[in-house]
């Protein structure tokens, strides 16, 4: 438990030192997307009988929480390759699980921070009828858990800091644009749809949208998210063990 707390505390202390900068940088993207797509492009647009902004906000929350959770890879890379602080954790008598959970919860914390920023911006926009309940936050948590685990796994799997950009460019950025964030995935050509439907972000976007539109929760989506959480966590543990050398 102390190993988890030490890892998490380090990230919290670093976050505290840069809190204002982090908060501002987390706010820029959602504000731009809301202004450009939600208000500029989508003012007169309705999807499934609802204003486009009501479609966009749950998608933005899923994309933004994904990005922030996954972005722990940058911090881990800096700690591993530049500051070499990671060695301090490797030489400590802590389990791989407690280290992994400490890093993942740091990613989850940042993901929730970005979620709250978007929800705060949403409050400032009138005429939106989105319902946010406890299950909504559970899904955000699972999304953050999956992508923080994948961020950790990718940070431990790479051999040089520059490799990280490749993963972000080839996996995260396409997922952000195709994973049901900005448009319904059934608008895509038939041959792409099956691939897009199984992306974790698509599941999260659709589930968050259903919940905020007061539709019943898809249990199969939730189960998939739980399975993906377990798989990504195991992948993170495997890469940490392998990174020793």
């Amino acid at each position, binding site marked *: 438990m*102390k190993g988890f707390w030490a890892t998490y505390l380090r990230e919290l202390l670093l976050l505290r030192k840069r809190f204002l900068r982090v908060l501002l940088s987390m706010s820029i993207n959602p504000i731009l997307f809301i202004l450009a797509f939600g208000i500029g492009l989508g003012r007169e647009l309705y999807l499934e009988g609802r204003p486009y902004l009501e479609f966009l906000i749950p998608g933005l929350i899923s994309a933004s929480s994904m990005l922030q959770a996954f972005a722990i890879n940058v911090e881990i890379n800096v700690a591993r390759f530049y500051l*070499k*602080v990671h060695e*301090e954790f490797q*030489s*400590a*008598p802590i389990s791989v699980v407690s280290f992994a959970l400490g890093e993942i919860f740091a990613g989850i914390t940042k993901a929730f921070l970005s979620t709250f920023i978007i929800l705060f911006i949403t409050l400032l926009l009138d005429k939106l009828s989105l319902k946010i309940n406890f299950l909504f936050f559970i899904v955000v948590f699972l999304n953050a858990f999956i992508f923080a685990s994948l961020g950790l796994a990718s940070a431990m799997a790479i051999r040089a800091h520059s490799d990280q950009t490749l993963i972000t460019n080839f996996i995260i950025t396409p997922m952000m644009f195709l994973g049901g964030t900005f448009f319904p995935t059934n608008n895509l050509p038939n041959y792409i749809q099956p691939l897009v439907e199984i992306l974790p972000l698509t599941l999260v976007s659709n589930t968050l949208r259903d919940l905020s539109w007061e539709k019943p929760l898809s249990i199969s989506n939730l189960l998939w998210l739980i399975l993906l959480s377990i798989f990504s966590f195991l992948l993170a543990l495997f890469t940490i063990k392998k990174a*020793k050398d």
Partner: protein
Amino acid sequence: MVRKDFTFIIIYVKEIAISISNLKKSYGKVIALKGISFDVYKGEIFALLGPNGAGKTTTLRILSGLTKPTSGEIFILGENLKERELFVKTQIGLVPQHVNLDLELTVEENLIIHGLLFKLSYSEIKRRITELLELASLTDRRKTRVKELSGGLKRRLLIIRALLHSPKILLLDEPTAGLDPHIRRKLWSFIKQIQAQGTTILLTTHYMEEAEILANRVAFIFAGNIVAIDTPTNFIKSLGQVALDIFINGEMFTRYYPTREEAERALSEFNKNYTAVTLRKVSLEDVFMKYTSERLS
């Protein structure tokens, strides 16, 4: 009449803190360690002395659990490192060659994180921080961000961080590399102070002077092999007391003699056929040169 002769034999058995046998490490085709073996006794300062790439850091990384060995056995305070890695880690404090501190965090925050990693209670962490900051003369820097500390202070912080959980063994990887002579000397006395408190120290260095001053015993490591192990005094004695460096036709030759008189006598035999000459005390560097040039040849 019965004669009774009693002979008392007192044998001092030195307790072993670290025992390494036939340790090998390969990185792909590169062999970093070719089967080294040595013991470090409790309470001593043991120096691994060798050039860059000799295998010093690899040895320390394996001992601290950062790198997995290819083969070989390691016992730390009688415990097998492979079988009881987590326990062994609690007995070791590692001071790496590079400054791996969180530069954005304060001195105290860095130490708190280390304390939690080594499972100390908050009250214990606070107590040890106060004690160690005092030992390292860093008390007034408790709330200073690490990035604002000088190189020497960062090194001292690295050492006290490694001592925070009261390890029985301290591993120092090139502890004074890149520091100026004044700070280096201050660190030497700091390291001696730590030894005086009962801590076993295994250090790596490529500074011969450092090993000569600090170490109780020295092992020369060269190209992944331990070439020789002894005390600095014995090593120096084995060569002689006086070294004669003679420069002839742009080349330097060094000869060793038991006394100054013998060295001067030998010098006279050169009939001034040299461009320069230096008469000096034999140092550990001479011993190192001897062993490594033997290996090279």
